[in-house]
């Protein structure tokens, strides 16, 4: 049984709850708790990202940029964009005639992102929007590219979010989902478990003074759909030619789908 099937089963037996890491919580509670997690890590987010992934997250994101197909004049949405790493790169590629929207549900993350982008001199072609991925405040057929990097696992209703992201894409536009996934190599899988359930929360406590948020991170990664399940979810949302690329032995996968 896939994780998603298991997920659906639990949700079916208890229709008003969803998972928050390994815990079952009421639906509306998840959003509040996710907000709490990102409120508490916002200011240390970039530093922790570098330490936790040993800098590899930069390569994962770089690969996403390569597959984005962004050109000058494009309209791009980076939803769950957090502190804006992808937004920064896209803003360079779309030029003055294009626009990038950095959207996030969490005001603290958005603020850190905005400050960081302003500090690096970017922002002329960037807009900042506080929004929930499940109900995006944008018109139909608007964006050439929508990306969600390390954000989908935090979204309560992923199917709804994927449908809404598809809605706002122009025909021919693409959706990129960069997310932790299922390691394809058993040795890597064991190393990764040991790392994320012991080293991560410890680092979280030492550096950000908050081990619970980082334990949530490890748990939410395990509850996230695997490569094939996410691919079918994207197809079900109406995307075509959905493919995925495993990176770092499947620790992270980049899914890409097109709207026809």
């Amino acid at each position, binding site marked *: 049984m896939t994780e998603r099937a298991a997920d659906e089963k639990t949700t079916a037996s208890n229709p008003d709850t969803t998972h928050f890491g390994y815990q079952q919580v009421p639906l509306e509670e998840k959003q509040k708790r996710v907000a709490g997690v990102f409120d508490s890590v916002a200011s*240390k987010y970039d*530093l922790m990202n570098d330490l936790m992934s040993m800098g590899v997250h930069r390569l994962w994101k*770089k690969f996403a940029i390569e597959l984005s197909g962004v050109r000058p004049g494009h309209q791009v949405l980076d939803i769950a964009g957090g502190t804006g790493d992808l937004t920064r790169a896209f803003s*360079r*590629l779309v030029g*003055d005639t294009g626009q990038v929207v950095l959207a996030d549900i969490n005001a603290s993350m958005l603020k850190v992102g905005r400050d960081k982008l302003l500090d690096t001199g970017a922002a002329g072609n960037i807009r900042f929007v506080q929004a929930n991925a499940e109900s995006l405040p944008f018109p139909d057929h608007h964006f050439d590219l929508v990306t969600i990097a390390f954000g989908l696992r935090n979204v309560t209703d992923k199917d709804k979010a994927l449908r809404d992201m598809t809605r706002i894409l122009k025909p021919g536009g693409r959706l990129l989902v960069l997310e932790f996934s299922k390691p394809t190599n058993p040795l890597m899988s064991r190393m990764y478990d040991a790392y994320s359930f012991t080293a991560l929360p410890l680092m979280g406590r030492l550096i950000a003074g908050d081990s619970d948020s980082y334990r949530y991170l490890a748990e939410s990664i395990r509850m996230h759909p695997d490569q094939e399940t996410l691919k079918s979810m994207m197809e079900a949302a109406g995307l075509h030619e959905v493919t995925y690329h495993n990176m770092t032995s499947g620790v992270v996968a980049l899914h890409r789908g097109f709207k026809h």
Partner: protein
Amino acid sequence: MPYPLILPAALEALINPLLKQLCRSPVAAADLARLQGQCLAIHLAGRQWSLYAHFDEGGVLLSRQTEVPVAAWIEAPLSAYLDWLKDPQIQRLRAHPQIQLGGDTQLWEAVQGLLTAGEGQLAAAIGGLAVSHPLASGVVSQLGQGLSWLQQLGRNLLQETQEYVTEEAAWLPSVSAWQALQDQQEALRTEVDRVEARIRRLEAKTDLGNNA
């Protein structure tokens, strides 16, 4: 995409801090401004290897593929690139029998300007990285440059880390702010306890009322 992504990532990490430093001089800043918003393609002759450089005021973004239209391109074998990096004169670039240029070739003058700025620091650094790549391992004469590149990389990394830590330290709450937060948390807990107690009392009262 036959070569590893770590290569453009490492080059970027090497070039951008150096560019930042070099652009304190108005001449180099003007060269970077000329390149701003442009995408330049660097092809390796004989192989299907390409590197695309997108320039903006923040530096350069390097990628192995792009859909951004290319403003200028260059194609040459690795040895010719190393020659150019050793002596980055635009005349040399134009006259080199193995180097081909295309598109808006004036943009390469701006690149050359950046390569020669600050006593050719950038050219030396990139040459060093190219040499440390296995492809160029035959070019032993470049080894010294490779070592100096490593030293430079070490210095850059150290400088970047120092800047990063200093910036991050500004985010850390002070001990007193932390204590104030704990006090407020404690006060909040007390308030919550109080509200809970009131609710319980109210519930008990309404139960009494209902039962009566």
